[in-house]
């Protein structure tokens, strides 16, 4: 249900003073064009993460249905005031906060008269959604949250969007390089703070233009160190997790301009699951959502409390080609039961643990039958069947002891179906099971 993502800068200059600088005017124009695109997209929700809304205690979620105020920016007040009245979707904010809490994160909703909505959010919503045609939801940026917690926040957003079922536009409000001119300048001569920062910005934008969101997430720390990127560029970790952490997007850089020395850009990312990646960067992390935050101060901040809850993670994926089912035993790692590519189904290694209880049957015959039952459930979930299996690789932990009895039990099902088969002996399997099967089938 995620339609698109946008990265936008949150300084008020394009909104309040476009006439003072050609670059600010250009940003304003790009902002407005994106706003028109959003309005005509059929989107039903705009989800905003702004680096200018700081939080300390976990994350905050705006649920006031109609916040109204006149913003006078603490620094840029000379540019003018920004009266605002926004249309917020409180139900989505509550759902998002609830999902965060369920996964061990500190989360609180806010609905207070006079709550100071940050300048970044105000600018983004005023320019992207000027008529409040689409309800919005806003989440804070925790100043302490590192990569894992920020990714978890993004995965929770993804889960909330899927559960909510509305077409959603995702907005990350962040500067690129974030070094301001600290003296008064002639606005007409605004430029990026340094050549180095400018070069880094252009490198990052080149990657965005190629739709390489995950790659940007991987180099965010370097970018932050070298160009003082806004809040460590953590907004990109959040956005990456919301969007599924891949490089499979069509990217478009609408504009890139200096705003008082900082790097300000407007970038569009459209999911493209069919995008061919010829030279893919390796991914070293799976989904993460579970955190321990006891608040004692004695724990290491935001340590991953346990291995990612794969069952929970399974709720998060929206890849159309990913197959998961409750009728088969849960995977024991961050992988799905199966994936579909064209007319083929590739199953992960499937063991004999029973769905629901994780019980491991006694004996190789029963374990073989249990493996086949799990495979059957997964294939049926994918609209296929045992009869459409093409190839099986079987892993046995004790070939000498078990092969004959395994073979007999195997034949009960596959004697007539006759898929190709390879049987290998292995030292061990991840859990105390004696057999695992890897299957390729027709969809």
């Amino acid at each position, binding site marked *: 249900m995620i339609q698109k993502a946008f990265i936008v800068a949150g300084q008020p200059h394009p909104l309040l003073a476009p006439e003072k600088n050609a670059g600010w005017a250009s940003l304003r124009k790009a902002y407005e064009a994106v706003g028109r695109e959003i309005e005509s997209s059929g989107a039903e929700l705009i989800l905003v993460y702004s680096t200018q809304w700081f939080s300390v205690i*976990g994350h905050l979620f705006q649920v006031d249905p109609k916040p109204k105020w006149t913003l006078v920016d603490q*620094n840029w007040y000379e540019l003018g005031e920004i009266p605002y009245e926004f249309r917020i979707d409180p139900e989505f904010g509550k759902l998002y906060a609830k999902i965060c809490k369920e996964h061990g994160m500190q989360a609180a909703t806010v609905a207070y008269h006079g709550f100071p909505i940050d300048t970044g959010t105000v600018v983004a919503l005023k320019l992207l959604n000027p008529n409040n045609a689409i309800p919005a939801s806003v989440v804070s940026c925790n100043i302490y949250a590192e990569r894992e917690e920020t990714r978890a926040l993004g995965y929770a957003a993804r889960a909330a969007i899927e559960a909510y079922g509305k077409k959603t536009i995702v907005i990350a409000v962040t500067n690129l390089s974030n070094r*301001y001119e*600290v003296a008064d300048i002639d606005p007409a001569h605004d430029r990026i703070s340094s050549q180095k920062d400018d070069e880094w910005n252009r490198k990052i934008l080149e990657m965005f233009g190629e739709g390489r969101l995950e790659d940007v997430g991987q180099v965010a720390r370097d970018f932050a160190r070298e160009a003082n990127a806004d809040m460590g560029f953590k907004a990109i970790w959040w956005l990456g997790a919301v969007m599924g952490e891949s490089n499979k997007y069509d990217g478009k850089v609408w504009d890139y301009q200096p705003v008082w020395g900082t790097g300000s850009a407007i970038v569009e990312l459209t999911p493209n699951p069919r995008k061919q990646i010829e030279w893919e960067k390796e991914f070293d992390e799976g989904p993460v959502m579970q955190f321990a935050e006891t608040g004692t101060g004695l724990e290491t901040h935001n340590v991953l409390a346990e291995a990612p809850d794969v069952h929970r993670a399974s709720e998060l994926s929206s890849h159309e080609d990913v197959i998961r089912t409750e009728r088969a035993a849960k995977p024991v790692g961050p992988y799905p039961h199966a994936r579909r590519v064209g007319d083929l189904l590739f199953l992960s290694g499937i063991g004999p643990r029973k769905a629901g209880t994780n019980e491991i049957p006694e004996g190789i015959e029963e374990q073989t039958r249990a493996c086949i039952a799990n495979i059957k459930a997964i294939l049926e979930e994918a609209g296929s069947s045992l009869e459409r299996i093409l190839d099986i690789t079987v892993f046995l932990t004790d070939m000498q002891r078990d092969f004959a009895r395994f073979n007999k039990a195997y034949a009960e099902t596959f004697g007539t179906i006759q898929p190709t088969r390879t049987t290998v002996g292995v030292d061990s399997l991840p859990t105390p099971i004696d057999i695992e099967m890897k299957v390729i089938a027709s969809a």
Partner: protein
Amino acid sequence: MSNGQIIGGLLAPHPPHIVYGENHWRNEPKSECGWEVLRWAYERARKHFLAKKPDVFLVHSPHWQTVIGHHFLGLPEFHGLSVDPIFPNLFRFNYDLKVDVELAELIAEEGRADGLNTKMMRNPNFRVDYGTIVSCHMMNPDWDIPIVGISSNNSPYYFSNEMGQAQMIKLGEATRRAIEKSGRRAILLASNTLSHRHFTTEPEIPEDMSREHVYEHSGYLWDMQVIDLMRKGRTKELIAVLPEFMDHAVSEVKAGSFAWMLSALGFPNYPGEVFGYWTVIGTGNAVVGWDPDLKERATTQGASA
């Protein structure tokens, strides 16, 4: 007018929790109690400094953050609702304050003459930050003495601790000269916490004091080291270690309020009076005053130099 003087300076941290713990009528959320050690510290400081009959409080706050130079509240009155964006559950404060605009303009002029970039903020809809409000409220809950509100320049966050501190020392000198010219009896409030690492969770009852302690031992050791220098009156050594303190204890003195005050006070070589130290969601907060009238008493309290 001339012969103005700074009659005192206070390290006056601003966690909104202490206002929440007080249950003052101006603050909407209500509590059972909480953070008494700090609140009582403020009570003692208040009793002492209000007895000196100040004409004005000057407050430098980290929560009014400015990019271009140093800004001053520039209208005679501000009123409105200040909602803490981080702890909105604890702090929604109805403020109504008066500003000594004349003194603020004098400081701005002195700063400009010394090469600083200064500005007057004259928009009546400007929302005064909660750092300014908490420090001022804890010193003068009747709000019957005007203030000078000064922003915190973000230079140390873009460049270096040392660069930021050098600016604050200049601003302190400009502040002192302006006060002397103004004829005012002024008290300075440096609205800074010491070690500034917060917990990222909050108890179900925010004022549950069984959950309150310093975030980490290293932060506490740093706090004790800098407080020891305060108690010994070794403020020139103190200012030299502050940049390191900022890095090692994530200290909020990076925002410059404390350096500004010490500079304005002329780096006192007599001990500061420690009215109290305690933690607020893990951060180290000390209420420490400098006043020549406290010199003898504070000296007996401090460890020997």
